[in-house]
């Protein structure tokens, strides 16, 4: 089911530790997935994406893992920094057949403790 409401799951992590944020997506037809970071009062900021023909993709300090069997996506942040404190959303895209719309997950708040 969908997660809607005022209370976001929160991940509290010590500065320098690794963070793992999980996301379950809903539609097996989705073939493109994106992680966005949203800081307070700002728009979603692109972090990393992955297409369904891959199961892992790495960026700078971030790794996205995709498990299509269980429809699960994760974002790993290495050596978490105070600037990583934000709400992180996964989003799925079913492509041009669905107008390229993104369907967002409920979000996870990451709090980095100094």
């Amino acid at each position, binding site marked *: 089911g969908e997660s809607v409401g005022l209370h976001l799951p929160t991940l509290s992590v010590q500065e320098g530790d690794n963070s793992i944020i999980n996301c379950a997506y809903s539609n097996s037809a989705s073939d493109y997935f994106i992680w966005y970071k949203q800081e307070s009062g700002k728009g979603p900021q692109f972090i990393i994406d992955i297409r369904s023909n891959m199961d892992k993709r790495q960026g700078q300090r971030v790794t996205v893992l995709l498990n299509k069997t269980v429809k699960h996506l994760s974002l790993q942040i290495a050596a978490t920094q105070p600037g990583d404190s934000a709400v992180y959303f996964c989003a799925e895209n079913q492509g041009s057949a669905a107008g390229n719309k993104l369907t*967002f997950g409920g979000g996870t708040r990451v709090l980095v403790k100094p």
Partner: protein
Amino acid sequence: EPEVTQTPSHQVTQMGQEVILRCVPISNHLYFYWYRQILGQKVEFLVSFYNNEISEKSEIFDDQFSVERPDGSNFTLKIRSTKLEDSAMYFCASSLRTSGRQETQYFGPGTRLLVL
């Protein structure tokens, strides 16, 4: 680095009034979108726009909403008669379309709309 811009950053209006939210997408992008985020909730798709027509719209995007690309740079969202429940953050996004592949959608900073 090119970015999506939106104006105004904040808009307060009375219920029943019309509002127009403005966006300037990234200049070489071809797909444009509006999303909204009610306070404390997830980002929701409203509408996508390509080649001067709506590609898809959600059930939220009823007859009170319309979009327009009045010139080569602006993309607008109009709410004809605002309701209290239209209060939200409205995000514009754009993406560069290349032959069938999904492309990253880049979001603007948003317009916070408050309907009183």
